[in-house]
């Protein structure tokens, strides 16, 4: 099932809105092992939103697994860039802390 962001939250601006999307993704991953997140109709996302929606997933799985199991679709360039940037930066930070 596709998670339609705009049907869950009014915008992608705050941590609280991100947390709602995280819950939906985590639920889909538990049930079906994968998730498709559609940003159709949403123009932008803040770092706070992305931290709570996607970076939190790094507590549950690796970045490689996120890449395989979570598809981000219908996303504007800004949304694609910020998700990639935040996940990559936080995964690198976590790997440095482990090393």
């Amino acid at each position, binding site marked *: 099932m596709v998670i339609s962001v705009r049907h869950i939250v009014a915008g992608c601006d*705050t*941590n609280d809105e991100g947390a709602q999307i995280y819950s939906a993704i985590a639920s889909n991953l538990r049930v079906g092992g994968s998730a498709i997140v559609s940003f159709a109709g949403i123009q932008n996302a803040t770092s706070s939103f992305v931290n709570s929606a996607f970076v939190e997933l790094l507590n549950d799985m690796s970045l490689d697994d996120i890449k395989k199991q979570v598809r981000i679709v219908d996303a*504007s360039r800004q949304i694609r860039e910020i*998700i990639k940037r935040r996940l990559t930066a936080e995964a690198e930070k976590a790997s440095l802390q482990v090393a």
Partner: protein
Amino acid sequence: MTREVIHIPSQLKGLTLARVVAQLDETTAGGMPDEFVFDFSGLRFIRPAGIVFLSNVMQWLSDAKGARVQLVGLDTSRDAIRFLDNSLFFEQHCGSKLNPESTPRPTTWPLTRVDMQQSHALLQMRMVPWAADTLGCEAGNLASYKTCISELFNNIVDHTRLDIGGIAAQYFPNGDFPFGDCIEVGVADFGLGIPATVRKVEPDVTDAEAIKLAFKEGFSSKSTPRNRGAGLPLLIDYLVGAAGGHVTVFSGNAIVEFRRGPDGRIASRVSSQDSFTPGTLIEITVPANFASQVGDDDEGELEW
């Protein structure tokens, strides 16, 4: 009753704000007067950051310091005073407009007190449509710009004592920047200020060093558990690095400017360390053509 007069400089924009705060510093060094008189008779030109800054200082003096604030020299035959009246400055600080018929110009986003609970809706429903209309582009082209202002609002929520900030914006058809037409926005809050917040985790830094640290990727004051220090660096990357704009940060005793150099790299410069700004004021100026440069409206799948 003790009374001090603050003369507003003729060009109240950018770094000239330091002249006002320097006067304020001198005035309050020997104790807080009962009344401050802001004399506008010399004012000839004011920018959005100046409007928000003055508004914040006046609010700070009356609310936080208990001083009475009076405004004089409000000659409506002068363009700068009419502009302030059109920006609803006097309506908010004197209780009514100087001229009842004053109204914001199409190129002006008036001084707005922002309740942070409503801030993102204000941005989405009113401010972005205003900017898109003014710049003649689609709202989707302003996604990065909207994100940056949202990041500032989130920052205010994370760090301010009062859940209220202020914002004003202006489109300058013939701006005096090297890149011509520009849109400028000033955003301010009444928080602790960046230096005091940063010093909770880095106690020995100067105010200027604290501001630079706050804009460094990955630095966080951990004021909330979910704070990861990504929002402010993103703002600099989008607006200075990508759009070629200017960002100036006023907080505590320092003013720090972020600019893109000829080599394309982002550089910061400390332009003052002896001024004073209550809370934080951020002045953002971007070339009007940034929306077409960024081009945000293509939806697709994230490719790793």
